[in-house]
């Protein structure tokens, strides 16, 4: 109901790799999503609410659960979609505890958008995760 009642869904992104921050506009806005802000760390997010936060944990210096709490302390307890290249145990634990939806950066953009939507609707998102992480 997010999109119907309040216009496009507003997405904030946390991306440590400065070079790739601009790429998120193309990834997010190809769907019915609106990129609200891209920050380098959770603490740099604008102190206003949004509908969902995409959290690229690669390059961040804290465990996933800590990063999620930092996001929540900054923008409120919004849904979080974690993206990573190689899911570590802390990332998998956050997913298992229902704190975030997880999607890998090897997924095509359409699948990443589907994961963002799933997170925003607080639905499950299934993606095969390679073994041996």
């Amino acid at each position, binding site marked *: 109901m997010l999109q119907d009642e309040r216009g496009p869904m507003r997405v904030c992104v946390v991306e*440590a*790799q*400065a*070079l*790739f921050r*601009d*790429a998120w506009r*193309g*990834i997010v806005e190809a769907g019915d999503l609106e990129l609200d802000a891209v920050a380098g760390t959770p603490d740099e997010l604008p102190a206003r609410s949004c509908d969902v936060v995409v959290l690229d944990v*690669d*390059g961040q210096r804290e465990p996933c659960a800590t990063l999620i709490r930092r996001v929540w302390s900054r923008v409120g307890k919004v849904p979080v979609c974690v*993206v*990573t*290249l*190689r899911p570590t145990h802390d990332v998998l634990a956050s997913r298992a505890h229902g704190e975030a939806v997880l999607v890998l*950066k*090897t*997924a*095509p*953009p359409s699948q*990443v958008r589907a994961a963002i939507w799933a997170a925003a609707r607080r639905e499950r998102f299934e993606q095969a995760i390679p073994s041996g992480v």
Partner: protein
Amino acid sequence: MPSVYVVEPQSLFGPEIARLVGEAGGRVVATSAVLDLDAIIAAAPEFVLLDLDYTFYDLTDVLDVLRSEAPLVRPVVLTAERGRGWLARSRAFGAASVVAKAASEREMIHDLRVVLAGGSVWDVRVEVA
């Protein structure tokens, strides 16, 4: 137009890297999410742009193999890694340039233009712990 083979395991960002290479005047011959040495040798690019962050690859091993097996290919390392000695180590193992992912789009295009024109870029930001 210099040919560039892009290795970007974060395939979500592959198109962005290819776009930046194009903006810098390079011709992307392939963008791959995996490091396939045979494919690189077969493509025979002038440059290989390597982003091996967050993977199991050891950069110095990869550079060493490239230097041995594809000596005409100039490896350009793109990284968010940081630490003292990083530039010297990369150079010693055969990197032609090291560009930090702390770069803005404008900086990256500038740096790539320098590299593709035959120059070198050693971004000191990777040395900052």
